[in-house]
């Protein structure tokens, strides 16, 4: 069963919610920040108006969340359920609730500068949907409901499983045709008057369905009249002419009456139609459909005899709501179809001419509503621009997609051109991507660990940083640069030689340490090397170094590690033990700004190497001085891992380490040189 369903705005206000089991308060908060702010992993490309089924589910330890997002209104629809359960109808529920909510309260949602949406009445609609969808999924096994709903209800909800339902009136029409006279031409032709989707299932045969799609012609009126006469029921006319209230009143009773006339034949026809016409039917939907159909024909007589007496006023009201819901869903569906059709066919010559002129005018003056066509070309240009800056294809494509989705339907400001709008949107997205969730103030963090305030209960201990990376990217060099910076700020630093593998590595570090000592001795720098030679287990050495530093009162331990190729299974797997033994406060990976290295794969593998609970904390990008404005590699790295860049190396000297400035990087990336 569902645990909760919430409708939330991007401003964080819960518009409507239903909780079945109390949830931890942070579940939804984490979901929002992971999916919509940090855009983690597979959840990255979900910021548009797509179906719930195409958004990957968000999983927390116990719960699964399915969601959809309406961009122009800024509303998120999210359903929460236990991961153990398999709820086949959940996507349909999320999408239907979205359609209903937007239809019912869209006007209110569009009002600016308010968060108040009057939607108390939505409870009923939600209940109706849950009842119907849940019912459709479990009907196959369960008995026919206790007459609470009219007979045709199960079939309807079965259909709901894969397509929006038909307006009930229509369905009834179709049945009546089958039952009364399935070969009657005018009636079959009458359906084109209505939208293709709604009419399809009600046509008696596949041939007729072709007719419907292929030949939208007049004559609907006439045939409707004919049908009216034939059935001698005022209700049909009423349905078609939109007087729904009348139709609803009469319908259940009528259904019951006609129901006796149905043959298994007619019902079988229905099922065939379902299978023929729906391009993407959900398996369960059909199964439920079939079994209910069979069942309902079997119990038809029993039920219909008691039907009249159970039809109380209360059920009529229930029915009203059902009808309204189905109408809304069906009309939304047909609107979507109509839109699809419209976009493929060219609009009138005059209209398009006027559009182009006003479009051109607005291109200059601003105030133009951006469409996909407007953006496509400019976005291609932006993508090429990013690729030229060495951004990996994957990252460039995703960034551009994100910007495009963000901009479709947006109005440009006064005197703002499309390309400058794209430029500013790209700037915003790059800034967001590169900005770390918590900005790192390394010195402040070291202080907090080594000299905790009297109020906190922590005991002082050294701050541990370890540096990882592939061979030859400059791990030891960057470690020495960091050390130089710390020494300048009068910290006592212990460097641990964790590279017990490559011969000469320890000596290289020893040289660095000697240089650093000479450079900073006058300013009171204090640095030592902790080494245990070669061949020892690096994790063990690291742990001993930390213990030694704690005993001797060092402030910071910097641990060098052996360079390893990211696809070297044996060496990579030892990293997990290393992280476990040394318990570093920060694990930093050194990556090169140069092109041609498989930096993205490297970063991914390293990020995953520390086990389930630990990951990289940041990147140091070396050799940034050699690439000029082509700093795209760091975008690729951040994009692939979600790990922030903290420092950049800009030269050969100990002082050539810089704090990573997001603004600097974004300027370089967007500069035209």
């Amino acid at each position, binding site marked *: 069963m569902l645990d909760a369903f919430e409708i939330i705005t991007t401003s964080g206000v819960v518009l409507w919610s239903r909780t079945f089991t109390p949830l931890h308060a942070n579940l*939804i908060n984490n979901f929002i*920040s992971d999916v919509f702010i940090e855009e983690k992993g597979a959840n990255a490309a979900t910021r548009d108006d797509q179906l719930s089924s195409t958004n990957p589910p968000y999983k927390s330890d116990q719960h699964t969340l399915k969601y959809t997002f309406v961009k122009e209104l800024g509303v998120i629809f999210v359903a929460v359920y236990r991961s153990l359960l398999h709820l086949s109808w959940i996507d349909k529920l999320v999408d239907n609730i979205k359609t209903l909510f937007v239809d019912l309260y869209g006007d209110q949602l569009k009002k600016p500068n308010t*968060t108040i949406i009057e939607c108390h009445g939505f409870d009923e609609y939600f209940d109706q949907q849950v009842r119907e969808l849940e019912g459709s999924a479990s009907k196959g096994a369960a008995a026919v409901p206790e007459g609470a709903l009219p007979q045709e209800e199960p079939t309807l909800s079965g259909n709901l499983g894969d397509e929006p339902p038909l307006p009930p009136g229509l369905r009834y029409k179709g049945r009546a045709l089958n039952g009364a006279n399935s070969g009657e031409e005018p009636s079959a032709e009458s359906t084109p008057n209505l939208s293709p989707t709604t009419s399809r299932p009600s046509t008696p045969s596949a041939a007729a369905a072709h007719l419907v799609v292929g030949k939208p012609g007049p004559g609907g009126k006439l045939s409707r009249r004919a049908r009216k006469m034939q059935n001698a029921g005022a209700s049909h006319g009423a349905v078609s002419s939109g007087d729904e209230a009348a139709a609803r009143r009469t319908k259940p009773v009528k259904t019951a009456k006609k129901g006796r006339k149905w043959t298994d034949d007619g019902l079988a026809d229905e099922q065939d139609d379902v299978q023929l016409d729906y391009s993407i039917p959900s398996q369960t939907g059909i199964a439920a459909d079939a079994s209910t159909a069979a069942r309902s024909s079997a119990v038809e007589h029993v039920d219909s005899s008691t039907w009249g007496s159970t039809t109380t006023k209360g059920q009529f009201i229930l029915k009203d709501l059902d009808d309204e819901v189905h109408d809304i869903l069906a009309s939304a569906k047909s609107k979507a179809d109509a839109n699809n059709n419209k976009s493929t066919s060219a609009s009138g010559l005059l209209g398009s001419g006027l559009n182009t002129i006003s479009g051109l005018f607005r291109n200059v003056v601003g105030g133009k509503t951006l469409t996909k066509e407007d953006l496509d070309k400019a976005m291609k240009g932006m993508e090429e621009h990013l690729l030229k800056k060495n951004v990996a294809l994957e990252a460039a494509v995703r960034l551009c997609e994100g910007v495009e989705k963000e901009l479709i339907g947006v109005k440009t400001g006064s005197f703002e051109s499309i390309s400058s709008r794209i430029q500013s949107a790209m700037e915003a997205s790059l800034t967001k991507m590169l900005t*770390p*969730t918590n900005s790192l*103030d390394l010195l*402040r963090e070291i*202080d907090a660990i080594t000299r905790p*305030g009297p109020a906190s209960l922590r005991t002082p201990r050294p701050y541990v940083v370890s540096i990882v990376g592939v061979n030859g990217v400059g791990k030891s060099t960057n470690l020495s640069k960091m050390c130089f910076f710390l020494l300048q700020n009068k910290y006592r630093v212990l460097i641990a030689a964790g590279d017990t593998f490559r011969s000469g590595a320890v000596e290289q570090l020893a040289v660095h340490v000697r240089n650093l000592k000479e450079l900073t001795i006058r300013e009171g720098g204090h640095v030592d090397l902790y080494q245990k030679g070669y061949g020892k287990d690096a994790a063990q050495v690291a742990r001993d170094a930390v213990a030694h530093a704690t005993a001797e009162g060092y402030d910071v331990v910097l641990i060098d590690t052996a360079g390893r190729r990211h696809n070297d299974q044996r060496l990579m797997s030892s990293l997990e033990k290393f992280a476990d033994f040394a318990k570093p406060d920060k694990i930093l990976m050194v990556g090169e700004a140069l092109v041609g290295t498989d930096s993205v794969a490297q970063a991914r593998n390293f990020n995953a190497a520390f086990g389930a609970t630990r990951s990289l904390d940041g990147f140091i990008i070396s050799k940034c001085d050699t690439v000029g404005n082509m700093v795209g590699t760091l975008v690729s790295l951040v994009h692939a891992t979600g790990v922030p860049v903290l420092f950049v190396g800009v030269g050969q000297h100990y002082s050539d380490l810089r704090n990573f400035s*997001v603004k600097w990087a974004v300027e370089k990336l967007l500069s035209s040189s």
Partner: protein
Amino acid sequence: MAFTDFAEYLLTPTPAVIFGGIFIVLLVPVLLHFLLTANVSSLTNLPTILLVGPSGAGKTALATRMERGPDAQPTETHTTTNNHSIEIETPVPSSSSESPSSSGPSAGEHVKFLLTDTPGHGKLRARVFNRLDAMGENDKGRVRAVVFLCDAAALSDPDSLRHAAAYLHDLLLVLQRRASARIRAGAPLAKCGNPVLVAANKLDLFTALPGTAVKSNLEAEVTRIRASRSKRLLDSGVGADEVGSEAQDDWLGEYASQKFTFEQMGEFGIDIDVIGGNVTGEGPGIEKWWQWMAYRL
């Protein structure tokens, strides 16, 4: 007769007619443009108060409470992902009226303002500061005041204190840069800075620090952050020769002072008040904050 005379005059190429014609031709597009965009600008002309603070401080809770009035059911809230302005009407405060509230009797004049709720998430902070910058020039729709909301119950934890203080530090630095630019341009001090309210929220919880402790904790932490910021590595892109000019700009408050206090910001025309309150539960409530905002409009 008069008509033909007039027509004749219009068709004669006199300087007056030519200039008039040019004038009209030039003016029409401009007018058209303003007509097209008029409805948008009228909205942004309301005075704005910016509501900032770390995630989970209760910004959205406060904004919705102010919109709905104190008697309404508190709304549930989740993480905010986008700036969102809310139009709020408040009685013009006079010295005698003590508690302005939206549901109160509409005795005097009412004034409308926009309260802009912002996301507290670190990744979206650039957006908040951009907003502060963008609205600086236009006098009518500019940000009148900034409310920095923080969770007084969380501030006893060193990590949350550090994050809250870092945000406050960055915010004040942005305001200070703006103000000092204006001071250099010669504007009177009173018009240079924005007033800031540090609102200590959640005083209904018994773990919450009182307003005075919030002030001293934040000041102490900002002092530490200021010190470590001044010592940190140069930003990428900053050349060694630009160091001197940049450094002074990055120092918050009185230059070379040992300890940072909120009063130091007065030098830049930025007045900071610290007031405790709570959005939900029993306690001082939001009246005092509301009053503070109403006075700043």
